């Protein structure tokens, strides 16, 4: 606002300044024109100067008087011709004095009346005397006397003309001087104005420059602030990822030990405590995974790993996991599958299950009485794509329309009060929605307060051709039947495993688990020791942690693979708490055979050991 007022004031000053300059210049022009006209006029009128006219007049007057005086003295008629000529010339001069425009200034003076006008009777007398047939000497003598008398007046006339001319010149000089002074003042004023104008221009230019610099500075500051804010946000995400990672290591120990504890001789009450502790740990793991997923999504590091999925089996697993939860709240939970056969689809099973777990556990969480139902319907879009619609319907508290609109926002929970009642990170729905979007789908909600809600996940998934199936089956994980531990111990007996792990709790846990499977175990605290160890003994399997002092697991893996001889072929499984997608890629790239994430699950560990034990048998055979 101030800037605009300033600008307007500046424009006003500019206008005033320009107008003043123009006025001054116009005045100058007028003066110059006036002067030019005055000069022209003086050259037109004053071409015959007054003094020249009167001087010539006086001269002819004197010559006439002399010739007349001679004629009177001689009384000779022969001189009459010359006298008449002188008279004519004199009279031509007289006429000029009477009629010439130059004489105008002189006419008001007494000398003009005496020296010119009073001459006329004498001239008439002379004309008469000369015009007579006979020379009248007496008349001529009278005229001569008259001429003598008038001599002083004629000379006075010349004097008057002289002074008049001088006065005129002085006057002209005065006028010229005055005009010159005015012109000088006007020019000075113009000069001053010009200086002021250019000075104000400079000032304005400086101010604008300063403003521009300030603006630039501001822009820089803002950019810097934005950059810092982004960096802080990135830092927070990184911190979250690191923290979750750090949390997983002790958590690994906690879960493992609880599992081991459960298998020992304990009282019924103690078993119940352990169960509660395990449930809490399980919940904590869910929260931890949510945070990890969130930071992975935020940094764009979450990638799907689609495999050919068998949907009925997948849904069976979901049902098996969720029904106890529903049953514990006294709710009905059932599934309704389409009549037609479900095709094999290419999907990241873990992530699909994550979505379904989230939606179903939410439905169970917010339903006090009634039922939760999962309905799956399919729509074939074309030969390669099928649209699957998972609708999870509950008879719970419902969500009002205002809350629905904010449902998928981060940290949002239906009611502030419900946060306390129902718990959770508030990240679940956002993560599910983000994953659904990665699967070219979306999650929508339809709800009425008090009537329950329906969450619908609609996914468009590629259909897997039948021809690809056998290979997919071959890659299928080890059957779950391996869970009965009693039979395994024999099969894994004598298998020598090197555990490379710097964390004592993890060392202890993995050691206990492997010992129970009947394996022979060696420990190393870092990659360097492992590298030395494998060159001394032959191992059937190496379990390799990643983050360790002195030499990390990935470097050790690379160096073992580079060793000469059969030792380079030792199976290596990388074990890490880093569950980002690139962690797996990095492990495989370093030369590892497989990858498992912490916390280490008993079944998972057994499956791995069994796989490589089978390899041992095969090699021996």
């Amino acid at each position: 606002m101030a800037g605009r007022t300033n600008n307007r004031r500046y424009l006003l000053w500019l206008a005033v300044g320009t107008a003043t300059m123009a006025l001054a210049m116009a005045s100058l022009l007028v003066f110059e024109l006036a002067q030019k006209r005055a000069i022209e006029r003086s050259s037109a009128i004053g071409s015959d100067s007054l003094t020249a006219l009167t001087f010539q007049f006086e001269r002819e007057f004197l010559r006439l008087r002399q010739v007349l005086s001679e004629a009177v003295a001689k009384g000779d008629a022969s001189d009459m011709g010359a006298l008449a000529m002188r008279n004519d010339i004199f009279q031509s001069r007289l006429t000029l004095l009477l009629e010439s425009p130059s004489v105008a200034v002189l006419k008001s003076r007494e000398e003009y009346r005496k020296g010119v006008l009073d001459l006329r009777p004498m001239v008439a007398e002379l004309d008469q005397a000369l015009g007579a047939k006979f020379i009248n000497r007496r008349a001529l003598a009278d005229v001569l006397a008259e001429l003598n008398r008038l001599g002083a007046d004629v000379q006075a006339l010349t004097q008057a003309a002289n002074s008049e001319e001088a006065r005129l010149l002085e006057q002209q000089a005065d006028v010229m001087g005055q005009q010159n002074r005015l012109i000088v003042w006007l020019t000075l004023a113009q000069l001053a104005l010009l200086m002021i104008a250019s000075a104000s221009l400079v000032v304005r230019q400086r101010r604008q420059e300063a403003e521009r610099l300030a603006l630039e500075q501001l822009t820089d500051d803002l950019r810097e602030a934005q950059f810092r804010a982004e960096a802080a946000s990135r830092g927070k995400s990184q911190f979250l990822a690191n923290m979750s990672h750090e949390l997983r290591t002790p958590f690994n120990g906690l879960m493992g030990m609880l599992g081991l504890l459960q298998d020992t001789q304990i009282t019924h009450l103690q078993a119940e405590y352990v169960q509660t502790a395990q449930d809490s740990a399980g919940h904590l793991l869910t929260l931890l995974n949510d945070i990890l997923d969130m930071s992975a999504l935020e940094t764009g590091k979450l990638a799907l790993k689609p495999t050919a999925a068998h949907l009925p089996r997948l849904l069976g697993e979901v049902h098996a996991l969720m029904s106890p939860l529903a049953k514990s709240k006294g709710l009905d939970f059932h599934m309704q599958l389409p009549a037609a056969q479900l095709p094999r689809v290419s999907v990241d099973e873990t992530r699909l299950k994550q979505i379904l777990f989230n939606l179903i556990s939410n439905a169970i969480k917010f339903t006090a009485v009634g039922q939760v139902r999962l309905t799956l319907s399919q729509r074939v879009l074309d030969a390669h794509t099928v649209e699957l619609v998972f609708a999870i319907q509950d008879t719970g508290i419902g969500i009002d329309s205002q809350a629905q609109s904010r449902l998928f926002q981060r940290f949002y929970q239906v009611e502030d009060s419900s946060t306390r009642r129902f718990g959770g990170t508030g990240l679940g729905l956002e993560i599910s929605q983000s994953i659904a979007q990665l699967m070219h789908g979306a999650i929508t909600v339809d709800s009425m307060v008090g009537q329950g809600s329906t969450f619908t996940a609609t996914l468009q998934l590629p259909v897997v051709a039948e021809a690809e199936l056998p290979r997919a089956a071959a890659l299928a994980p080890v059957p779950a039947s391996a869970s009965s531990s009693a039979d395994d111990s024999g099969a894994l007996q004598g298998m020598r495993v090197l555990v490379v792990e710097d964390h004592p709790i993890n060392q202890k846990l993995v050691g206990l688990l492997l010992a129970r499977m009947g394996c022979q175990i060696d420990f190393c605290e870092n990659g360097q020791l492992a590298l030395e160890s494998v060159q001394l003994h032959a191992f059937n399997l190496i379990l390799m942690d990643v983050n360790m002092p002195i030499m990390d697991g990935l470097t050790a893996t690379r160096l073992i693979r580079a060793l000469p001889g059969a030792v380079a072929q030792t199976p290596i499984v990388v074990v890490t708490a880093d569950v980002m997608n690139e962690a797996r890629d990095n492990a495989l790239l370093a030369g590892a055979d497989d990858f498992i994430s912490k916390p280490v699950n008993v079944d998972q560990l057994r499956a791995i050991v069994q796989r490589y034990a089978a390899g041992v048998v095969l090699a021996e055979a």
Partner: protein
Amino acid sequence: MFYGIRSIFVGIFMAACVSLPAAALQPATGKVVLSIAGNVGEKNSATAALFDMEMLQKLPQHSFTTLTPWDKQPIKFTGPFLRDVLAAVKASGTTIKAMALNDYQTSIPADDAQKFDVILAYKMNDADIPVRTKGPLFIVYPYDTKSELRSTVYYERSAWQLKSMTIE
């Protein structure tokens, strides 16, 4: 220019009636009004070429009307071109010294006679010019045709009561 066409017609008429000036200048028979001395090829006296009014009137005649600094009204002047007069006496020189009855002298560059239609006027407003006015002969420039002619330089060259010229 309103006098121009007429003056040309008059000129052609005169040229047709009177055979071009004879090679030799006839002696003046009437009262001598102008004598031209100095570098002249034709003389009709011992020292100069003498003209009476009749001889001037026999040359091609021209008229124009112009304002002069000496009168408030425009005046019509009539007479032969100065260059024709000079040609008639076979004048050769760069300067014409003009002399008036009252001893007034002025120098006229011979070029002026070629550059401008300078008239040696013997009539003002179709009347003879008496000595009392500015006669009998008056060198007149066509002041109204060019602004450069309206200056003191040319006003001073305009000799009236012209008596004689000397070609130098």
